């Protein structure tokens, strides 16, 4: 509901929200106080400036408080010992950092060398394996070539058939329990 409209619900005073309103208030219409627009403008502008001033003042006071804190911290009784201790600790920290850096660089260097070695090894292994594989394949190829000479092709077919038919081979043999083999049989 707009601010310049009538207030439909009253703010709670002595009665609770469950008490009925009085009979004399049955026809009461509560309107908010009238607002003069130009006065409102003027007042808004004044508020803006006022808040600007206040924030500037607060900043100033804050700066003063921090200044006081800082100089209280500086002018402590044992500030000299604290400074000296601080410097000692910083130097020690620097040393530790340097030491760790050296160790870390050492480790990284070693790891890189290891990696290089591993890579070389791997490459060598690969090359070797490739070589053996190629040689195997070469041998295979030569063997096949050799075998191909004795293959039967459509051109050799007739000749080979003639040759087989001309030279009958007898594969029969006899063997006894002592293991003596006899190749000469009744058929040949």
């Amino acid at each position, binding site marked *: 509901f707009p601010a310049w409209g009538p207030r439909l619900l009253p703010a709670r005073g002595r009665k609770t929200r469950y008490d009925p309103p009085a009979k004399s208030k049955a026809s009461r219409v509560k309107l908010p106080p009238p607002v003069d627009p130009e006065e409102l403008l003027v007042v808004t502008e004044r508020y803006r400036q*006022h808040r600007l001033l206040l924030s500037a*003042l607060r900043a100033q006071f804050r700066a003063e408080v921090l200044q006081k804190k800082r100089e209280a911290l500086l002018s402590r009784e044992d500030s000299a010992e604290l400074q000296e201790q601080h410097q000692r600790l910083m130097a020690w920290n620097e040393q530790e950092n340097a030491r760790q850096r050296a160790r870390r660089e050492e480790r990284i260097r070693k790891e890189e060398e290891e990696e290089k070695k591993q890579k070389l090894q791997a490459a060598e292994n690969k090359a070797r394996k490739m070589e053996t594989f190629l040689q195997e394949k070469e041998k295979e190829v030569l063997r096949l070539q050799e075998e191909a000479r004795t293959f039967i092709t459509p051109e050799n077919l007739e000749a080979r058939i003639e040759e087989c038919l001309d030279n009958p081979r007898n594969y029969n043999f006899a063997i006894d329990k002592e293991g003596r083999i006899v190749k000469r049989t009744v058929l040949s």
Partner: protein
Amino acid sequence: ALFAGSRLLKGYRGGHVVIRFALGGCTNRPFFRIVAAHSRRARDGKYLEQLGCLDPLPNAHGERVAGLNLERLRHWLGCGAQLSRPAEKLLGRPGAWGPGWGPATARRGSPLLLAGLAGFLPLHPMTVTGAERLRRRRGQEAVAPPADGSPGAR
């Protein structure tokens, strides 16, 4: 110290430091203490520090007396304390919102050089507005009764 900074023995959630008036005194005899306290505390409850007092009733010479601890006020404002409306109005400085001054007028001098009552912070806008309204109403009343007086007499 039992607590430091913003830790209270009663655990509140949120809230901030305010400089406000705590009411004391007896029936028909109020008395305000200007106090820096947490916003969630009771009005007259435990506070962080008392920064002054205000007697709202005029004394034998017709003055309304107040006392302020400006040093601690500055400290608390620097620590980020808010002000309640009446506290702001009390600490206002005349001259920042004169009737002839406008937003274009440059402010000469720092407000910190002025001290004393109504001299610590810039004047609150509602103080000036209230004064203007009062003046206007008094002017209207000065015009209206003579106008009513002469026709009423007839």
